[in-house]
């Protein structure tokens, strides 16, 4: 019902798109892929793996929204350039520590809707490694 489809819940996420891939294109993205569904399934359907497979399938079929695709592309660029990634992390840590709440908790940040954004760590593993083991690597 919340899905606007006949089948709800995890099994719905993997069956509903076979009825209408466009209409139910958002559903497989509404999962943490924690696998609890797979653990309890009495006929051992690998539900969480199929949810993940549907994501790939729907993106292939161009059923992912533009914003999501653009965000993934940007993330892909960032993650494939270590220097840019580290600069972004440093900037984000600084921003989280110093910006006023209303800048961080607003409509644009879906993460902050029902929870607190985690505190930035004082030191990342990379900077620790650089400081302590840097000369040997």
């Amino acid at each position, binding site marked *: *019902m*919340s*899905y*606007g*489809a*006949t*089948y*709800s*819940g*995890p*099994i*719905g996420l*993997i*069956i509903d798109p*076979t*009825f*209408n891939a*466009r*209409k*139910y*294109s*958002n*559903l497989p993205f*509404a*999962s*943490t892929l*924690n696998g*609890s*569904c*797979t*653990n*309890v*399934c*009495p*006929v*051992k*359907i*690998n*539900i969480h793996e*199929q949810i993940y*497979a*549907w994501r790939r*399938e729907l993106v292939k079929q161009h*059923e992912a*929204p533009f914003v999501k695709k653009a965000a993934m592309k940007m993330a892909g660029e960032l993650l494939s350039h270590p220097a840019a990634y580290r600069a972004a992390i440093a900037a984000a840590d600084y921003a989280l520590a110093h910006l006023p709440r209303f800048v961080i908790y607003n409509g644009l940040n879906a993460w902050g809707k*029902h929870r607190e954004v985690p505190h930035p760590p004082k030191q990342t593993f990379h900077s620790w490694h650089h400081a302590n083991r840097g000369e040997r690597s």
Partner: protein
Amino acid sequence: MSLPAKPSEPPMLHPELRAADDADAIHKDGRRLDHAEGSSRALQSRPEEQPRGAKIHGSRPVDQAEAAARFIAAPEHEKMHDERLWDLRQKRDREMHGIPEWEELRSLASVIKEHTLTHLDEYLDQFEATAQRNGVHVHWAQDAAEHNRIVHGILRDHGARSLIKSKSMLTEECGLRAYMASVGVEVIETDLGERIQQLDNEDPSHVVVPAVHKLRTDVAQVFARTLGTDRDNSDVHYLAESQRQANRPLILAADAGMTGCNFAIAETGGVTVCTNEGNADLSANVPKLHIASIGIEKVIPRLEHLAVFVRLLSRSALGSPITQYTSHFRAPREGGEMHVVLVDNGRSARLGLAQFWTSLKCIRCGACMNTCPVPAQRRLELRRDLFRSHWPHH
């Protein structure tokens, strides 16, 4: 009567349902009835209006997050929904730990289903042949529209104007109720939860407990509007009995009956339906005409395989060892007629999807829905259970 202290077991019930002086809800051995409806105490507060499901705009992508946000914004509903599903999950765990061969049963069930699905044509042919030998009329429907046309055709041939039916996800899939309304056949759901949903003109929200998102006060509103009950009386016994009194005459006068099917047995041509209200038996046996709608993936090879699934189904679904009724229909009743409609509606196409065909193994127990932490934003116990090692202690 005081409750035995059990610090190891977390409370299962909504605090407003826990009333220490409520003797009706306590077992002989001192334990409380542990289902959420165990007490008939009225809710203390006046809850908010029931949030409705996702908004549908044709084939535009459904925004389930919008629907979820509205549900979360209704704290009474969210809390109750959360606790009811968590209650089911806990009871399922208890049943699972009660039988040492649980994992063996799961493996067997999986293997039987995979074998059947990879030989589906043979078993469907066998089922058709044995069913026909038993005197059952067998129909094949390629899609939802054909299913509805076939059912309507059978009803027309018998001059039937009213149809009582037990719960069936397949008929939900086919939009049977809307179709029958358009051709002037009255459909009466006999499962209590499904009847509530029908009277409220709303789809089921869960495959096993279709009205699980409704508070008893919501049901009181629906029944007041449709059955003329007292709007302010949300006592579950009163509501259930009122519905029974209203529905029973319709059942007795119905021209035809319909059931779904949990398992169709190729070897015997039998159709097995599992219910907790006995309503499949009413639907199949009160009228002279019985139609069973069967998704083609429901077939299993032999009667002995049924034992595996019957032991798993209700334990997984409701955390009870078995459904109250496990009804077997193999032939028309004396002087009656029995039809089965075998429905594809996208299933054979799904069977051809290399990554997704095993989703056809599903027996619709709903265990995955009851355990999922996503719809439950605050189901903390479960999240602790899942992420125990990462959970911060406050």
